[in-house]
């Protein structure tokens, strides 16, 4: 399927979901839907680095918070419209992602993972000590009551996040089917062999960290408007870090479908559990599901479905194509 066609289909589906939420005529669905869509962006972004390249980022919350806090900082100076804030948040997080990658990706993979863990702690320290954005007290962002033509402001935020989610999925799908994606897959499968065959692994990894970080920052940028009052502990919440890892791993890491499925399922489950049980218990559910899935079903839900249908796991598109090429060339 062509990418432009894919984008159109995504937009139609997105529009249909928005219409359905409108028809239900209850703002709660927009509030809940916003969170799920936010997780779709985070999970997809994480998967570009984690699933395609095989490098684990534990600092999703840090990139997310960077986006959120760049919004707060810009808002203090001059209140820009949200789409511009999203771009600013993306640029800031992308630069930090690039810097982190540059320092750690030349070493073994585990160092990158550890450095991202530490990054979350340090950025939180910086934000707590930075009074301009509210420090440990937090910062208020007054959300306008209504905005034309959406009626309530949450509908507008929902649409922004929906477009971001569609954008993220499209980017992931394009990467997956491009030379870039094949390059990422070689890094995941055997980095040494890839390097030896002339794949510019460091450059590819830096591209992946930058795109992934930028998308996470973009997901965080509208967050202050959503929550109204931003505190370091809510922006750096552990639930972002764990969810953006758990969702792709539970859904399946090798294609864009996995994070989407994982985010929609887990995100909705958590919204349900938060309302019916408690928010601590729903985090426990996520943790248990994550551990259970990585042990029992390493290829996630997508892998299980494919096993059931009898297909090969996705993400081996490249291998399939190579095998097909090989067959053609056999006399």
């Amino acid at each position, binding site marked *: 399927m062509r990418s432009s066609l894919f984008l159109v289909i995504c937009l139609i589906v997105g529009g249909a979901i928005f219409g359905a939420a409108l028809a239900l005529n209850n703002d709660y669905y927009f509030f809940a839907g916003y969170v799920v869509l936010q997780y779709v962006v985070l999970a997809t972004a994480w998967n570009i680095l*984690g699933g395609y390249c*095989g490098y*684990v980022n*534990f600092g999703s919350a840090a990139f997310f918070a960077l986006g959120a806090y760049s919004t707060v900082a810009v808002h203090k100076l001059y209140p820009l419209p949200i789409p511009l804030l999203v771009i600013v948040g993306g640029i800031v997080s992308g630069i930090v992602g690039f810097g982190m990658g540059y*320092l*750690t990706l030349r*070493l073994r*993979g*585990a*160092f990158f*993972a*550890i*450095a991202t*863990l*530490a*990054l979350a*702690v*340090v950025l*939180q*320290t*910086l934000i*707590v*000590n930075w009074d301009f954005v509210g420090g*440990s007290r937090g910062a208020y962002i007054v959300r306008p009551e209504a905005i034309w033509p959406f009626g309530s402001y949450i509908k507008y935020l929902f649409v922004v996040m929906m477009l971001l989610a569609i954008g993220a999925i499209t980017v992931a799908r394009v990467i997956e089917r491009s030379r870039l994606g094949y390059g990422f897959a070689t890094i995941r499968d055997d980095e040494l062999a890839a390097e030896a065959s002339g794949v510019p692994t460091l450059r590819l990894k830096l591209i992946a960290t930058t795109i992934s970080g930028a998308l996470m920052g973009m997901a965080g940028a509208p967050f202050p408007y959503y929550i109204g009052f931003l505190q370091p502990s809510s922006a750096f919440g*552990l639930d972002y870090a*764990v969810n953006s*890892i*758990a969702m792709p*791993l539970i859904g399946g*890491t090798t294609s864009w479908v996995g994070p989407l499925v994982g985010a929609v399922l887990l995100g909705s489950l958590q919204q349900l559990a938060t309302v019916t049980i408690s928010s*601590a*218990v729903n*985090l*426990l559910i*996520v*943790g*248990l599901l*994550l*551990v259970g899935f*990585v*042990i029992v079903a*390493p290829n996630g839900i997508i892998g299980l479905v494919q096993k059931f249908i009898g297909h090969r796991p996705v993400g081996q598109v490249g291998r399939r194509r190579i095998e097909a090429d090989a067959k053609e060339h056999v006399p």
Partner: protein
Amino acid sequence: MVFSFDLLINAIISGILIGAFYAAVTAGVSLSFGILDIVNIAHPAFIILGSYIAYIVNVSLGLDPILVSILATPAFYVLGAGIYQIYYVSFEKRGQESLRGLAFFFGLLFITEVVLVLYFGVDYRYVEAPYIGPTWHFGFVDIPLRILVPSLVSLLMIAVLQLVLTRTFIGRAIMAVAQDQLALKLMAVDPIRIKRIAFGISIASASLAGAFLIVIQPVEPSVGREYIGRVFAICVLGGMGSLPGTVIAAMLVGIVESLTATFYGPSWAPAVSFGFLLLTLAVRPAGLLGR
């Protein structure tokens, strides 16, 4: 900021003492990450678990927290050996340790924390022991016993670990696993068994470190997260798996953190270890006493 000699000396001494404790916290990671190449980011969670066990027994039976933690080491050893077995069968054997193995430990970290929150809430817990109140004064130098005692026991524990690693058959086999598994197999030693033992020891050390932690400061379930960056920074700085290197690195981090806290304010201290980590990775990835 007025520079004060008293403050400086006090900060350095408390940094050395805290550093000895950091070394005990890191020793387990030096074993698992440094020697066995298992990126056990859940190690701080096991330390918090150790703290809570020391707390429960201390509150209900009034036993000394450090004694409790020594008594709890066999249980932690079994826990560690069990976790390694799961890790080996599910990830190492299938060659998936880099992505899913990491996620597995992250999940463990997370589950431990949430379960502790659900049972004990987010209140700070503390223990009672005769050495927790008093402070020794030497001129202008103050040494609180609640820090001195854990530091000394920490150093003792690391000395014992180092002796075990260099003098006993099992210890030497653990060092050998890091270098050449195949050679170890040819010597008729099962590398998986050795790794299981080593990982068990690593988790057992978390029991002690947990007791030290709750003696030094009150503990709540998410305290462990602050230690992740610190522990790995020290491990990398010390040279991945070298216990003497770990002690030196831990004291260095302890001193710099303590100086930062004294002269710039405690809210900046967490940034120190990260600075160390990035600096080490950028300048000398092999660490101070690298293999």
